[in-house]
């Protein structure tokens, strides 16, 4: 099988096959001796040559993360033959949504529609787990729309506003 693997935004080409319990592997054209055991559903014991690694897998929402040691990588895998590959969003051009990162309650709106906002400027104050937190603007631009009001409960992923 041939895979396009994306680790923290960088693409790698991985050729990986398994026959009779043995793996053959080429990463970016380099041959690697690989031995892998799934020790529990999200924990892979991986040996490359004689070096041993424990790799932890985590899905958070639509994102997939792999942790090697204490480093966590945003990961995507695409089978090049598949037409259903996912594309990355987060395009910096055009409008950006401000999304609730957690369930909670809107405490205060710090800007109004039409206001200019700087990248990283606080726009909305949310309360969750007894703490108030400022939601920051994902880009510099104009606050085109605010979709919540003070006191409103929100769920993670809810769109709170749009910056253009």
């Amino acid at each position, binding site marked *: *099988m041939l*895979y396009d*693997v994306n*680790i*923290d935004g*960088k693409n*790698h080409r*991985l050729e*990986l096959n398994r026959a009779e319990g043995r793996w053959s*592997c080429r*990463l970016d054209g380099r041959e*690697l001796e*690989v031995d*892998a055991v*799934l020790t*529990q*559903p*999200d*924990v*892979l014991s*991986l040996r*490359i040559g004689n070096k041993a*690694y424990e*790799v*932890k*897998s*985590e*899905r*958070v*929402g*639509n994102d*997939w993360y*792999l*942790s*090697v*040691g*204490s*480093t966590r*990588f945003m*990961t*995507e*895998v*695409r*089978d090049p033959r*598949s037409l*259903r*590959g*996912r594309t990355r969003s987060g395009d910096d051009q055009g409008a950006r949504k401000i999304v609730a*990162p*957690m*369930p909670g309650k809107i405490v205060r709106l710090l800007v109004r529609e039409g206001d200019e906002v700087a990248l990283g400027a606080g726009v909305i104050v949310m309360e*969750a*787990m*007894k*703490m108030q*937190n*400022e939601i*920051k603007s994902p880009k510099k631009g104009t606050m085109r729309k605010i979709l919540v009001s003070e006191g409103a409960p929100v769920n*993670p*992923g809810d769109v709170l506003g749009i910056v253009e």
Partner: protein
Amino acid sequence: MFKKILIANRGEIALRVLRACHELGISAVAVYSDVDRASLHVRKADESYPIGPAASSESYLNIPKILDVARRSGADAIHPGYGFLSENARFAQACADAGVKFIGPTAAAMDAMGSKTRARQAMEKAGVPFVPGTSRGVESLEEAEQVAARIGYPVMLKAAAGGGGKGMRLVQVANDLKGALESARSEAQRSFGDSEVYIEKAIINPRHIEMQVLADEHGHTVYLGERECSLQRRHQKVLEEAPSPIVDAEMRRRMGEAAVRVARAAGYTNAGTVEFLVDQHKNFYFLEMNTRLQVEHPVTELITGLDLVHLQIRIAAGERLPFTQEEVQIRGHAIECRIYAEDPDNNYFPSPGKIALLLEPSGPGIRLDSGMYEGWNVPIDYDPLLAKLIGYGADREQAISRLARALNEYFVGGIKTNISLFRRILRDKDFIAAKLDTGFLDRMLKQSEDKAVDSNAVNVAAVAAGVFAALSTTPSHATSTVTNEAISNWKTASRREALRSE
């Protein structure tokens, strides 16, 4: 000795107390709100009782409901843990009135110490040094302006009923006083139901060092050494250690004796903590007394070899302190990391949700006081403290190296935690050199982290990604050979996604 203790708390501290009960042969009663039915303290208790909806005011803060459970269960004592009702004098009094022993100080001692302003008045009498400022709440903006001008800026506004950094504001210049006073008052009202706010001179970048005291009901009061709690974020402690790297035997004796004077002045019994601010010249000032067991009590337990919860229970049962001040020995060094459900890469936003994967550290010198388990849903409704990881060593260096090793074993998947923050702290030059003050974390977090990408780790991740994809299914293609583990993996992943989209 008590036969049955009701634990009026949740999370890791409920577990901590529950374990002490079982060690002493005492039956443990848990209470829980609707969202805590599956919590660990309910699973491990001998009896458990629902006490209402998620909102604390209708469950863990509801005195009549908790006393009703005490009566129905036949509990002869209540341990309040920390937070919630632990420093509520009305609750302590209500317990006494109901004939149930409150494991903690009396309502009168709590009253004397619970209000920070009244505590300052008592300290003035007992001759304990405290930070200049008002010993009662300010009535008006004009009064606040006058006081601030007299003691000099910067000043700190603090809620009289406060704790945990709530209702607290640092004011650098006179112009900011009005807004800060208003917001401190409204936060104090929201958090504690009391808007009283007082003013103190702000000591910039002090150390925050506290002294553990223990008093029995027969007039014996001892101190058990200090804890260095200077590593704070938003006035919330993040990492604590004992002993403090700057406190020597002589300073410990002076601080300890001052703390004992504080406790005696209040007629204090059971476990308590006297907090001091320490300036650059090692002058210490009384800050406040916490009339409960502290979150960070394990570091004291490790260096003294004492079990504070056992002692709390024994003292409440009327026993005498089983040792004298001279017999208290400090040995080794302990450091505690508070593991919070929060996202260090996203401004420390709380990160509730399901713990999809949990790998816990163990081994020499490691203690883990945890309230979570794999598959548990961290509720949004309470404090985000999940667990405390404590490292012990013969000296500070060994404690650090054991803790660093344990942090690398620790993995919490599915939600974000601040574990990576501790890895960073333990590597920090100033931390290793014990150059600590309350401004330490803000300064460290302002520096951009050295995020050199380890190309070998990247390669490992890339290979692992392919193996995971081959063994199970990735979001983009649900075909190929599937093992049993892979099926369950896929099922949980898709179930999780289905829940999210509801």
